[in-house]
């Protein structure tokens, strides 16, 4: 057995002490590093929670606005088809219901919520992509694409169904027809009374960039015009009527589409979320 004495033993003791000190420091550094990582992870989780909360509130409000709209008018986007079924004139009570819901959310939401529904209330929507405008005015309904490949060129066909009160409809005739295009739009206009005793079906391939007008005339008086369906450039549709009717329009596209309102919902809390309102 070798016994180290004197200066050798002192040096070894000092070396041991320094080694142990360094070990302690390494452990402390490791603890500090891991602790920082845990704090960062917790902060990240908290931030995810905030984002989740804002996104959840936004989605909830969007869904309920869509539900209110669907109660008054039937709107849906199914693949490349958009269906809009509504009474003409456009129901004014929808505007009151949307206002009440906005007020409810402003009063009871846990986050700061602001909802702008100006366009939705007046029945103005947007088919995306392509920014194809759907608009409602007193006695008028219109689908107006942009003059572009992804807008007017994406449109494949129109189906327009007009439901008139009993005994109001007699005939449907083209007063103007433009069908010279090599790339036409297929149209089908159906007019009927409530019991389908009178059903008028008009088919055609109309010029995407021309004007075609279909006149629907009255059965009661002397052939008075009761409604007008106009197809005009660029691939636009307009329905005009002076009486209260039920209107169903199916617009078919070559591509997948969604229906949005040109309005926004904003949820403001620790994390803000603002987006355009998707209806279908």
């Amino acid at each position, binding site marked *: 057995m070798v016994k180290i004495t004197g200066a050798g033993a002192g040096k070894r003791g000092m070396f041991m002490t320094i080694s142990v000190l360094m070990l*302690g420091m390494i452990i402390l550094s490791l603890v500090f590093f891991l*602790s920082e990582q845990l704090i960062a992870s917790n902060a990240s989780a908290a931030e995810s*929670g905030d984002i989740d909360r804002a996104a959840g509130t936004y989605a909830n*409000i969007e869904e309920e606005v869509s539900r209110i709209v669907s*109660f008054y008018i039937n709107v849906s986007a199914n693949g490349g088809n958009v269906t809009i079924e509504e009474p003409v004139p456009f129901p004014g009570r929808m505007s009151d219901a949307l206002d009440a819901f906005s007020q409810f959310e402003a009063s009871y939401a846990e986050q700061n919520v602001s909802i702008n529904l100006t366009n939705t209330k007046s029945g103005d929507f947007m088919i995306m992509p392509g920014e194809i405008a759907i608009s409602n005015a007193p006695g008028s309904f219109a689908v107006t694409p942009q003059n572009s490949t992804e807008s007017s060129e994406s449109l494949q066909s129109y189906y327009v169904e007009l439901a008139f009160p009993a005994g109001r409809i007699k005939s449907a005739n083209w007063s103007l027809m433009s069908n010279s295009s090599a790339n036409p739009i297929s149209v089908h206009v159906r007019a009927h009374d409530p019991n389908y005793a009178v059903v008028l079906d008009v088919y055609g391939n109309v010029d995407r960039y021309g004007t075609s007008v279909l006149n629907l005339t009255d059965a009661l008086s002397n052939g008075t015009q009761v409604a007008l369906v106009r197809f005009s450039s660029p691939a636009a549709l307009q329905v005009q009527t002076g009486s209260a009717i039920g209107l169903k329009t199916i617009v078919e596209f070559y591509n997948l589409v969604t229906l949005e309102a040109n309005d926004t919902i904003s949820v403001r809390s620790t994390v803000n979320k603002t987006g355009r309102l998707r209806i279908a």
Partner: protein
Amino acid sequence: MAGKREGKGFKGFVFSIDAILAVSIMVIFIAASFLLIAKSSQDAYASLQMVRLGKDMLAVLEKSGTFALWDKEVLERTMNSSLPQGAGFHLQLDTYKYVNSTFALVDSGHYGQQLPRSTNVYGARRDFVTMSNGETEYTIARLWIW
């Protein structure tokens, strides 16, 4: 003799310092271990998962029409069969009507167990509108799960 005693005193001092150092390092090591174990046992993302579970449950209950029944037994049975085993819940439904430009609370229901005081509780909320017979009702469903 005096030199030997001084040498022994110095050795004792070094021994004491060494012992204190060893104990200190041991204390640091144990404290650090406890700190890390305590922090790592709090899964920060578990709360997010529970909140999402709550939201999904509220959405399912609303869309399936279970809320519309206002049936305590059906609601509690559905909740208990959907939640993970051992989990508890408290559900509150407040329904308002828009009368004279203000919202009046017309119905309020509480379901499930009392909220615990000593456990982590996760909350979810869903607002929904019901329209029937020309009447519109605005309901806030609040769910706490633990």
